[in-house]
């Protein structure tokens, strides 16, 4: 049983559509007049639901509508939702950048928000000066920064450049330094928005492990918004899903993500960061495949295991190569309109059946590509020894086929015609 550290009660946020101009002034005056007479704000009544694909029927839109949830001490909350569902607005309100139109939030403990890395960096200042500046902006005192200074420089890996103006940094160094400061914040509650989308793959991995370390080992409360489902599922324990400004689901992270993926139906925002999350265990029926005749159907049983991965619309392609590395069979799942969904921690058996391909005798190698519907690669299995075709008893004769120089040996007939 943990204490509530953040309590969000009926938060709503109204935004005005279109431009600010003279019309805004009349609206402001009407609003003031209504307030003066003790009436409700006339524009709050007519705000529309935040669905960006539809044409608005009012000048005002509810970016968030009546959101309530609670977060306990040490919880790591993942906030998911499509673009424009209100995630960033919610974070902005939680980090006190803007205030809600109605409702209130109660917070226990100190809060730092990372909606961007490197806020307040000044190009003319050195790395050292910027570490202090950025740290102070994020709420650290000079003393706290000094005590963590070496750690920060170490994490960013910029020891040599500490006293060089950051305008001379490579963009990678710049971003690493910026993240390093953020990663060493010492507050009770951290609010993080997509900051992982920085640096190269190695550094992203480093960031991610630092984040899980912060949350799991240091017992901090974290609010995390990301489109990276892998990252969310890795780090968070509870989740909420926003849809058009409305709280569509709250619960544990696995359920929230399942709901989110089910909701997307071929959405394009699902990514996986590492192919270690979907593993190939091997071909299960190798013993059968070792003794085939050109005439027989080739029937592969491929076994896979998923770890922390959620993915819809997974496609799979197969290629069969002969000993001369020539592609003899090419099959794509989307020709059959076949696709499947991957859920975490499950086993998958995929059957691939080639009907009597009449391949010439010899050894064959299989190449498998797994990818998301958008083309994002998941797994690539290269040239595994897959099957051997013997020529025994083919064509009903007891002789071996010899001197085959073609890739296929279809059944054929040779006859003498009568004239």
């Amino acid at each position, binding site marked *: *049983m943990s204490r509530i550290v953040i*309590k969000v009660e009926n938060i709503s946020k109204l935004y005005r559509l279109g431009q600010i101009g003279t019309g805004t002034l009349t609206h402001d005056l009407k609003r003031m007049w209504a307030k003066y007479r003790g009436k409700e704000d006339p524009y709050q009544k007519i705000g529309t639901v935040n669905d960006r694909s539809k044409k608005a029927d009012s000048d005002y839109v509810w970016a968030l509508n009546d959101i309530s949830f609670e977060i306990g001490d040490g919880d790591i909350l993942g906030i998911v939702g499509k673009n424009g569902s209100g995630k960033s607005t919610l974070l902005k309100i939680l*980090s006190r950048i*803007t205030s809600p139109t109605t409702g209130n*939030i109660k917070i226990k403990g100190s809060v730092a928000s990372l909606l961007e890395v490197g806020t307040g960096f000044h190009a003319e200042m050195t790395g050292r000066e910027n570490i202090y500046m950025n740290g102070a902006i994020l*709420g650290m*005192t000079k003393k706290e920064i000094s005590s963590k200074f070496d750690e920060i420089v170490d994490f960013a890996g910029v020891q040599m450049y500490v006293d060089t103006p950051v305008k001379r940094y490579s963009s990678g160094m710049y971003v690493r330094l910026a993240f390093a400061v953020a990663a060493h914040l010492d507050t009770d509650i951290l609010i993080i928005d997509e900051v992982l989308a920085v640096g190269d793959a190695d550094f992203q991995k480093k960031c991610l492990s630092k984040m899980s370390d912060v949350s799991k080992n240091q017992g901090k409360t974290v609010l995390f918004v990301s489109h990276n489902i892998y990252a969310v599922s890795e780090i968070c324990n509870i989740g909420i899903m926003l849809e058009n400004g409305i709280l569509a689901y709250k619960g544990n992270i696995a359920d929230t993500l399942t709901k989110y993926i089910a909701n997307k139906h071929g959405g394009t925002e699902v990514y996986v960061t590492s192919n270690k999350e979907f593993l190939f265990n091997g071909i299960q029926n190798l013993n059968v495949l070792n003794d085939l005749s050109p005439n027989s159907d080739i029937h592969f049983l491929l076994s896979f295991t998923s770890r922390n991965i959620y993915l819809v619309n997974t496609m799979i392609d197969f290629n069969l190569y002969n000993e001369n590395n020539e592609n003899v069979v090419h099959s794509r799942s989307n020709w059959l309109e076949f696709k499947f969904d991957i859920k975490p921690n499950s086993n998958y058996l995929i059957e691939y059946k080639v009907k009597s391909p009449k391949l010439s005798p010899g050894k064959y190698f299989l190449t498998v590509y797994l990818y998301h519907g958008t083309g994002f690669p998941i797994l690539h299995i290269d040239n595994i020894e897959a099957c051997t075709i013997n020529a025994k008893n083919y064509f009903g004769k007891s002789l071996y086929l010899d001197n085959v120089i073609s890739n296929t040996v279809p059944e054929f007939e040779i006859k003498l015609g009568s004239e």
Partner: protein
Amino acid sequence: MLADNATDWDYEISSENRFLRLNLLELWRYRDLLLMFVQRDIVTVYKQTILGPIWFVLQPLFTTLIFVVLFGRIAGLSPDGVPQFAFYLIGITLWSYFSDTLNVTSKTFTDNSNIFGKVYFPRLVIPLSKVLSGFLKFLMQFGFFIVLWLYYILITRQVTPNWYILLTPLLLLDIVLLSLGLGIMITSLTTKYRDLTFLISFGMQLFMYATPVAYSMSNPKISKYHSYIWFNPLTSLFEAFKYGFLGTGVFSIKWLLYSVGVTFIVLLLSIYVFNKVEKKFIDTV
């Protein structure tokens, strides 16, 4: 299950505006940030320049030379018996502190919307840091004036200061608070409607002529405008300054109190407006 700890929340976020809720404690927690902003302002200004901080002194020096020629020689507005150079230098130094502070603080929200949109810290830190970094710049310029002033007292004996000099810290404080108040008022009002920014750019020019920078209230040439110029809250401050240091001008306790009163009202009003705007400006800026 989560336990509800009824009341001991550290802070609350809501849409309500509390009248004049100035969170000084929070501001104190961010004092390091304040000092770093000051440092940044000072340090970055003269990076990659050869003369460095000397520029701070060169600016008023050249303006003063122009004023000596224009207002002293041609228009004949400088008072008799006082070295023109010292007279204009003190006016320009004071004026540039006032106008610089007003200028930068009046752009607090628009210039920093980038940072403000990403991180929360008490927004007042920014205008306060501008006031302080401006003050450091002012001190350098003022130091330059003091050197010149001592020269006029000790070497040429053209100037005799008096005890009103002791009012200097209070006069400076009033000037600072007035410019800060006006600045944050303007920046609060311009987040949504940009009209005021146009007014500021040329209004500052006019404001200078309505302030005894290039002339003194004791000058008979401007006596018929007295009734208007005294209503400028800066007038009595500038006059008291010149009276203390150079023994010229008009010292008026009545108008000084008026100026303090105006400053107080402007400051209260501007903090109220600033508080109201800082919570939502990012939606409209």
